[in-house]
């Protein structure tokens, strides 16, 4: 139970930081000035606020945002502001200053997990060899590949020599073509999956088949050639565009709204350790 309480506490604190970083303004609201930049020097910025000129000394904790006609204001170094810019300038609330360090911390944690991944692989493959499971010799090859990959990895960035050759052979002449081969399998998988999906077994399947037929023909010249004599709204390219950008977009946006709200709910459950089942079998 202590371990779970610790996990819950760390989760809450980490979540709280990200939550506050998002909702707390980056500058102290009551000390932030918003106006037009009149002059910028290495030591101070002069802003025109409500017709009055206000001088702000450039200190290490000073943050500046340049306003843009559209979109969120862009964070810039105070000295990067230009005369005539609309800007918000104020002392930092410090939360945003740590975001890079906190993100780096998680990247380091993630990197440590690669070791666990390797341990998992070693456990599985050494077990295969020990118990002489079917195709155990493939597991021997795994250890050879790991050793070879590690040595070849040392050749990354090397200009010449056998290490560079080894790196090229393993990563460029073996791994890359193999990945492309696997990727190309997708074409065949798509064909078989489409065949199954397009067998008209129900009303929904028929609708899907008809829509796919229109969209596919609408994307190629023969679609226009077949229907060019019809009124424009009955021409295949027009119908295909309508399906793609009107009907499909409406459905996709509906899904998106649901997912976004769902993501907030899942986030809240994890943040407050209310999630049950897999993570916390009972209430803390």
């Amino acid at each position, binding site marked *: 139970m202590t371990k779970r309480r610790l996990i819950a506490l760390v989760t809450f604190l980490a979540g709280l930081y990200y939550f506050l970083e998002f909702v707390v303004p980056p500058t102290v609201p009551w000390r932030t000035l918003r106006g037009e930049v009149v002059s910028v020097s290495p030591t101070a910025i002069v802003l025109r606020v409500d017709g009055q000129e206000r001088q702000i000394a450039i200190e290490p904790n000073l943050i500046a945002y340049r306003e843009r006609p559209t979109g969120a204001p862009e964070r810039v170094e105070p000295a990067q502001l230009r005369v005539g810019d609309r800007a918000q300038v104020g002392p930092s609330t410090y939360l945003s200053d740590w975001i890079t360090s906190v993100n780096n911390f998680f990247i380091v944690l993630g990197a440590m997990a690669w070791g666990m991944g390797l341990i998992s692989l070693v456990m*599985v493959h050494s077990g295969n060899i020990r118990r002489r499971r*079917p195709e155990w010799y493939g597991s021997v090859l795994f250890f050879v590949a790991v050793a070879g990959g590690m040595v070849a990895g040392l050749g990354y960035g090397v200009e010449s020599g056998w290490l560079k050759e080894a790196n090229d052979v393993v990563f460029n002449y073996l791994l890359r073509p193999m990945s492309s081969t*696997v990727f190309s399998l997708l074409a065949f*998988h798509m064909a078989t999956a489409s065949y199954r999906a397009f067998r008209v077994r129900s009303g929904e399947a028929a609708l899907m088949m008809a829509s796919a037929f229109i969209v596919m023909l609408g994307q190629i010249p023969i679609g226009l050639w077949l229907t060019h004599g019809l009124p424009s709204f009955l021409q295949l390219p027009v119908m295909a565009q309508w399906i793609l950008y009107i009907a499909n977009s409406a459905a996709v946006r509906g*899904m998106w709204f649901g997912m976004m709200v*769902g993501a907030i709910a899942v986030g809240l459950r994890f943040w407050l350790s*209310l999630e*049950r089942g*897999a993570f916390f079998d009972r209430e803390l």
Partner: protein
Amino acid sequence: MEHANLQILVAIALFMFFILGNIHAARRGRARFIRRIPGLNEIDEAIGRATEMGRPMIFHPGVGEVQNVGTLAALGVLGHVARRAAQMGSRVIVTTAIPVVVPVAEDIVKQAYAQAGRPELFNPEDIRFLAASGDQLALATANVMTQEKTAAHFFFGMYDYTSLLLTEPGQRTGAIQIAGTDQYFQVPFFIASCDYTVIGEELYAASAYLTRDPIMLGSLVGQDYSKIIVLAVILLGAFSVTFLGSQNPFVQIIGVYR
């Protein structure tokens, strides 16, 4: 990093109020009803079928990092699948390309077997980090399917183009396949190659639906109230722009065209 403006702050506060409010109401014993999700109902069926056949099953928690919401939701489903499998004395093999998922999945499955009183059935070798890239993982998972003669495959979480590389070989083995993803580009592939598909937000609702925990169900109801608010804002926005123009007071308050 983007920061919340006033409108977003109000929206977050409203969503939190509805979700936490409904969780509080659920804690006090108010019964909650949620609609049936066929894909999730079939999970127990698939586990039962695999157990009857005496074959293991595969759980694949997607290709997203562990902090991805889809992956978190998938790990919630893994907890349920592992617990049911443990109760029935069956085996679950977890395959992943994300190393951080390995210890988390191991902990979840181990805990599930321990809770079911069958800790001896847990085998750490069944939690497999098979490859570092998605397409290699798909091939390796297909190999596990044929070697272990698996009878049920669960694909939950975030997926990319590898979705079809995973499910098509599975389809050919004759195993029952259930998938759920929040990546709508992959949904058609899952529908074409799986027996049941859980779409979009249903994935996020999965652990609440499966555990039937009143508090979790409360959060689902709160989620639905939040969606009603979003829908109302969309409708009001559409009507106000249609009849009052794009600079009407409602649009100004919402800040759409800022």
